[in-house]
């Protein structure tokens, strides 16, 4: 087991720079999730940690030792690939034992490790099958098993669940979480699915365009996003953003009105004081709207579509030309184009400046 430190890590492919000076501290035994949209550099960062990509600048240290020039095989890491990357011509048992055998690991120890991994992942009855004879979920288990038998210092997962159907994904997510608790090994997990990130992580690293936008515990990111990107990325359905402008400043708070409905005004405490008239963005999560009258201001919206899921309803609405998603418990509001009024609680709203940075 080991911690990991990234210091100003840069990755360039020719003239194209895809990771711009990433700094990150990962504690021993921590479950860290790299999350971000496609092309944000999360997989590249993971592959650099694995040693499958060269580091163009900066340092990667595992357990205090800089590994920039250490061969992937010598880093004591194990990786689970998106495509499973099982050896197609080998049985499950051979898939698990192959690497150990090639390195002259004693037979009894290899057997012990395989039995241990098979028990943890409940793949005992699959041992003599080949990958083609396994379902997606079973293949994923074998791929994880192959990582476990290596007894690595760090586990790396590269979008391991993205090829599975929704139900299986939830099931495997729980199993990976259990596995982490059982093994206690450092795990780094890449996904573009913020739900996976929220449910699995001790610590989430949000990436955008090769830059780390924010690092923190899942609920810290949810409750206290550093900028509009993180606010929009964390949480499902995603946060609503409404255009607004600063109406009045003073006394440690500012009053903001909505462009779509200037009669809606909210007064919020902030430390930084933008000038009156400054354009801002007001963010509010779908689940944070209140009943009309219960918030600090009421917002009248036109309902486009309502989805009723039983315990909750998602109301897709608009105000002027701005689209909104509102989550209301057990609302049976289905009238298309009907007006619907909700409350905006100021303490649940976030303000962002024109650059998307949070106004606190």
């Amino acid at each position, binding site marked *: 087991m080991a911690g990991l430190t990234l210091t100003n890590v840069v990755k360039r492919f020719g003239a194209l720079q895809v990771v711009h000076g990433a700094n990150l501290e990962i504690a021993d035994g921590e479950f860290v999730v790299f999350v971000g949209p496609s092309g944000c550099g999360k997989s590249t960062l993971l592959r650099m940690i*694995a*040693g*499958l990509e060269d580091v163009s600048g900066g340092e990667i240290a595992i357990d205090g030792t800089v590994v920039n020039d250490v061969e*992937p*095989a*010598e880093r004591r*890491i*194990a*990786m689970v*690939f998106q*495509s499973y*990357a*099982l*050896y*197609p*011509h080998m049985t499950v048992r051979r898939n698990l034992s*192959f*690497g150990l055998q*090639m*390195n002259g690991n004693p037979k009894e120890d290899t057997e012990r490790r395989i039995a241990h991994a098979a028990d943890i992942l409940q793949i005992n009855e699959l041992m003599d099958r080949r990958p083609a004879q396994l379902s997606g979920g079973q293949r994923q288990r074998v791929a994880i098993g*192959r990582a476990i038998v*290596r007894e690595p210092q760090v586990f790396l997962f590269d979008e391991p669940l993205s090829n599975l159907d929704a139900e299986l994904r939830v099931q495997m997510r729980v199993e990976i979480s259990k596995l982490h608790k059982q093994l206690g090994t450092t795990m780094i997990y890449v996904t573009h699915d913020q739900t996976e990130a929220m449910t699995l992580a001790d610590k989430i690293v949000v990436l955008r365009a090769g830059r780390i936008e924010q690092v923190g515990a899942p609920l810290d990111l949810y409750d206290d996003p550093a900028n509009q990107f993180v606010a929009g990325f964390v949480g499902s359905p995603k946060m609503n953003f409404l255009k607004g402008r600063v109406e009045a400043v003073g006394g440690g708070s500012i009053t903001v009105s909505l462009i779509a409905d200037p009669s809606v005004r909210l007064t919020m405490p902030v430390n930084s004081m933008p000038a009156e008239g400054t354009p801002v963005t007001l963010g509010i999560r779908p689940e944070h709207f209140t009943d009309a009258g219960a918030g600090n201001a009421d917002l009248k919206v036109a309902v486009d579509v309502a989805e009723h899921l039983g315990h909750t309803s998602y109301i897709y609405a608009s105000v002027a030309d701005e689209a909104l998603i509102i989550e209301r418990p057990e609302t049976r509001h289905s009238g298309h184009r009907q007006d619907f009024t909700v409350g905006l609680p100021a303490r649940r709203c976030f303000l962002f400046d024109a650059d998307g940075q949070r106004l606190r």
Partner: protein
Amino acid sequence: MRLRNGIAYAFLAPYLLIFATFWLWPIISSFLISFQNTRVNPWRFAPSLNWGRLVGDPAFYNALYNTLIILVIQVPVMIALATVMAVLLNSPLLKARPLYRFAFFAPVVVGEVAYAAVFRLMFSIDFGIVNKLLGTVGISAISWFDNATAAMALVIIAVTWRWAGYNAIIILAGLQSVPGDVYEAATLDRVSKVQQFFHITLPLLRPIILFCVVLSVIGTMQLFTEPFLITNRGGPGGGTETLGLLLYRQGFNSLNFGYASAIAYTIAALAVAISLLNLFFGRQAK
């Protein structure tokens, strides 16, 4: 439905007609001819004449021996070479890959006569570049066309030069179908490149290599061009005469079509038998 089938067959008719006339009928016809005495006019039905001769003909055994020697040496050497070429062509370190791909494939599209002429020049005892190069490392000039063993070696070299690239391209296609992350997984499993080649690449290429072996066996069983054009019609003294050449001599020099047909069927039967053996052992090894 019936009308649509009729139209479909009408469209197929020209092909089927040509196929039946120039493909199917000659196959059946040559089988029938192999049971006839074609050295008399008119031909007479003599079921044991050609097949009986085949069993005791030293020229047939000489040609069979030569063909099998070429097969046993050339096919494995060529496939091994093709595999190595394919692996090199597949290397990410290689620049200008399409150029090499073309270069390796080019021998197949070169005209047979032109390539045979170049080989004859290259291996000429008096002014061939090969003997000159051998001379520089102290090996005395080899009479490639007058020594039966050297002539066989020449045929093997020529056939290998011509077809190794072709097989390399097929094997390369197989290599490219192996996902790269399998090798990455192996690298993380601390499996060396050499171990990766023997334990991952080769087993995954087995079906493709088997396919190439079967194709090459069929091709070698029919070998004609190289011994005919390069080593002077199977020379020296029948030293490179193959079954294909014997067939040609019997059919078109001696006009003994009955015997030529019997040889043709023997070639086909041997090719099928060897290919089936290959497939059988290839599957067993799995």
